[in-house]
């Protein structure tokens, strides 16, 4: 009861005309920023900080504006994934796998609405999780030492097989390539720069956004350039829009998926070392293992759209748990929000809930408001977004190229990143020729560093004893899931594989 009273107080704080206006503005800007490749939630929030300060907003209104942008960007990231096969930000990457094939089948409207609903479910449940469980959940985060984190990342990679390719060896190659790219930069465990060739821009490693935009967006442009003669690309691009809202049967079919993945995504978000990308990734691969009996994942299965979207939005909510309760950001965006809190003289941490209840509950109420607003805003806008598909590629592709360049330059303001992006674009183009999936490369770069560091931390702490990796029940549990996830498909995989091979011919190389 006290909980509801607190929440009521939160709504009293949040429900003013000014705050609702800010939430509306934040949701809109966030959606747009999320949809643009290169501009992700963390940049979106960072860009708007000066606005919040210039307007002289207090703590709660600033947070409402910025968290609306955060949630909005998590919603928006899916739009370009589905329509263009170009993820708007890292967590939206997995949505490409089934979203784009759905759009190609003329189900773009349904995919967009369904992913909107999945986003809503994920974020909604995560916000409740945040309210009910935040103090308890912190204890889960404390169960994870370096060894457990390593097991978690290993699990992610072991369930990778078959996620995005018909050929396991190519998936493994792509993941290894990604892991290799993650080695670039100063090694934090020894302080030694690796593969930097004295280039100061490489000291911090490669920026994932640069890699994503290069691999997905630019390579798409290259493919278009290559095939533009004789309307060769026309066949892939002549898309029907179809209906705008998903039929009830589809929503019903996806409901268990959404509930399961919301839970998984939320858990991944709560772990400060994991984050939203891992959330959407594990959601997708677990769901595929669980329900994909016919091998339809990757060919435009609605559940394959609902899973990562519910997962990554739930992770976004989950990431607020360690930020508020421990003062430890679980993702890039929460790191920015943390900085905002600090500059507003609010110290997040174990005492935040007792010392600044107005801020916490105002924020939580704002999350609910933003969430409903985003749902209300996104469903009618589906019609508008799908018009994008009517733009002929000869106009669309230059725009994609332009947005990519501007977006990447905007992050760091350095031309070096543009070069890296172009290099990734060429690499993506070559790899697509060889039918190598691109998603595992990004996962490798994204998770490789954290995985390596946690392995080395665990080993160093236990003075070089490798058995430390299987020293706790939690670690053993994670390894068990990882091994089951790895072996099970090999046993029951023959049937699935057959289905996949039939599919492969009609999909071609671009569908990864």
């Amino acid at each position, binding site marked *: 009861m006290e909980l509801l009273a607190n929440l009521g107080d939160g709504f009293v704080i949040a429900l003013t005309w000014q705050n609702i206006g800010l939430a509306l503005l934040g949701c809109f800007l966030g959606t747009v920023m999320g949809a643009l490749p290169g501009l992700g939630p963390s940049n979106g929030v960072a860009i708007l900080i000066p606005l919040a*300060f210039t307007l002289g907003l207090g703590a709660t209104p600033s947070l409402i504006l910025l968290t609306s942008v955060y949630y909005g960007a998590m919603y928006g990231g899916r739009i370009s994934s589905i329509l263009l096969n170009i993820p708007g930000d890292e967590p939206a990457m997995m949505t490409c796998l089934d979203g784009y094939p759905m759009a190609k089948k003329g189900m773009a409207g349904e995919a967009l609405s369904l992913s909107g609903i999945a986003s809503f479910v994920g974020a909604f449940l995560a916000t409740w999780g945040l309210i009910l469980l935040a103090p308890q959940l912190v204890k889960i985060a404390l169960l994870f030492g370096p060894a457990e984190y390593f097991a978690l990342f290993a699990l992610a990679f072991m369930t990778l097989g078959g996620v995005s390719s018909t050929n396991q060896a190519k998936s493994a190659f792509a993941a290894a390539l990604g892991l290799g790219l993650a080695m670039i930069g*100063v090694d934090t*465990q020894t302080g030694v720069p690796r593969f930097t060739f004295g280039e*100061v821009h*490489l000291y911090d490693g490669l920026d994932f956004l640069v890699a994503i935009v290069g691999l997905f967006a630019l390579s798409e442009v290259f493919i278009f350039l290559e095939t533009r003669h004789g309307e060769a690309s026309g066949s892939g691009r002549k898309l029907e829009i179809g209906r705008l809202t998903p039929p009830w049967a589809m929503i019903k079919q996806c409901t268990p998926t959404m509930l399961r993945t919301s839970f998984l995504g939320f858990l991944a978000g709560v772990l400060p070392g994991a984050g939203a990308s891992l959330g959407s990734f594990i959601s997708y691969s677990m769901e595929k293992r669980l329900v994909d009996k016919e091998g339809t994942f990757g060919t435009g299965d609605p559940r394959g759209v609902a899973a990562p979207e519910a997962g990554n939005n739930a992770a976004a909510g989950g990431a607020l748990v360690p930020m508020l309760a421990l*003062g430890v950001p679980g993702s890039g965006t929460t790191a920015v929000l943390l900085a905002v809190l600090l500059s507003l003289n609010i110290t997040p941490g*174990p005492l935040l809930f007792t010392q600044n209840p107005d801020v916490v509950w105002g924020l939580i109420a704002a999350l609910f408001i933003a969430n409903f607003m985003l749902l209300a805003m996104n469903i009618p806008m589906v019609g508008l977004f799908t018009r994008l598909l009517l733009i002929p590629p000869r106009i669309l592709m230059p725009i994609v190229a332009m947005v990519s360049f501007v977006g990447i330059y905007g992050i760091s303001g*350095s031309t070096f990143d543009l070069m890296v992006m172009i290099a990734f674009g060429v690499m993506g183009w070559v790899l697509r020729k060889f039918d190598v999936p691109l998603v595992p490369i990004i996962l490798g770069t994204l998770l490789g560093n954290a995985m390596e560091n946690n392995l080395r931390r665990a080993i160093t702490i236990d*003075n070089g004893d490798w058995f430390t990796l299987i020293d706790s029940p939690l670690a053993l549990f994670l390894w068990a899931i990882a091994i089951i996830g790895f072996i099970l498909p090999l046993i029951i995989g023959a049937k699935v594989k057959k289905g996949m091979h039939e599919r492969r011919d009609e999909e071609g190389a671009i569908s990864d």
Partner: protein
Amino acid sequence: MKFKATRIAIIATLLGASALTASAEGFTPENPECIAPANPGGGWDFTCRQVGKSLQDQGLIGSTMQVVNLAGGGGGVAYAEVVNKRSDDNDLIVAASSATATRLAQGAYPGNTMDQVRWLASVGADYGVIAVAADSEIDNLTELLDMVKNDPTSISVAGGSAVGGWDHLKVLIAANAYGIDDVRSVKYIAFDGGGEAVTQLLAGSVQAFTGDISEAKGFVDSGDIRVVAVLSPERLGGDFAEFPTAREQGVDAIGANWRGFYAPGNMSDEAYDAWVAQIATLYASDEWKQIMADNGLAPLDLQGAEFEAFVANSVAQIEQISREIGIIQ
């Protein structure tokens, strides 16, 4: 080359002229800009935003301070940019800290040295702390260091910086002062930021934490961790007065993570003096004292030439330690 020199001369003349007209009422930056050499959310970003906001609130600058995040190379990208491309920008300041000095000392900004920029002023210091979990059996710093001395493998120390970074050096300074000769044997585990390191201390993965006082404060207030030593010359004020210093436990170690700014190397003297004066005014204000108190920043009041000497000294000291522990040859 000649062309470049002429161009610089022209720009300098123009800037000089504009500075002259402005100097009647003191230089005021038209488009004040602060580069935070890291992604949003870190200490440098905080320094830029907080100082920018306060300068504007107090009317010390006319327009909003634009904060630009120029991440990369642990600040090296921003440093190179300022030295190579914006060396005569009068409107620009850049956030810096002990981490900047550490990297300069270790030659981690390839080809750059500290005298290529003008060091403006400090806005406070974050003293280092060494902490243990609240339920730890270790009571004080000497007990901790004794354990390290007897069996270095028994204690893992977690910190938020990479090996050779400032969090690592702090614990080495303490170990060195206690008489541990081979400081390389101290087991240091690098995490991604102080918050993650504290979390691992709470999780029981490591036995001790080295970091800044501001990173530890929230957890000390909640009773989760216990500070065994603060690396300040004497006890700090306010909430922090209960922390024992390393010095009073017989370990003569001081480690302050100062926060401050540098400016481009060819900034005009008028602009340099004006920025120094503005930051000094800000530093002296009650509002800034409050911000320092709220964020656990200790006083460090150095401006202009004094600050420049302080940075030079700190670079020299870090260079010496780094050489001793073999990070640089």
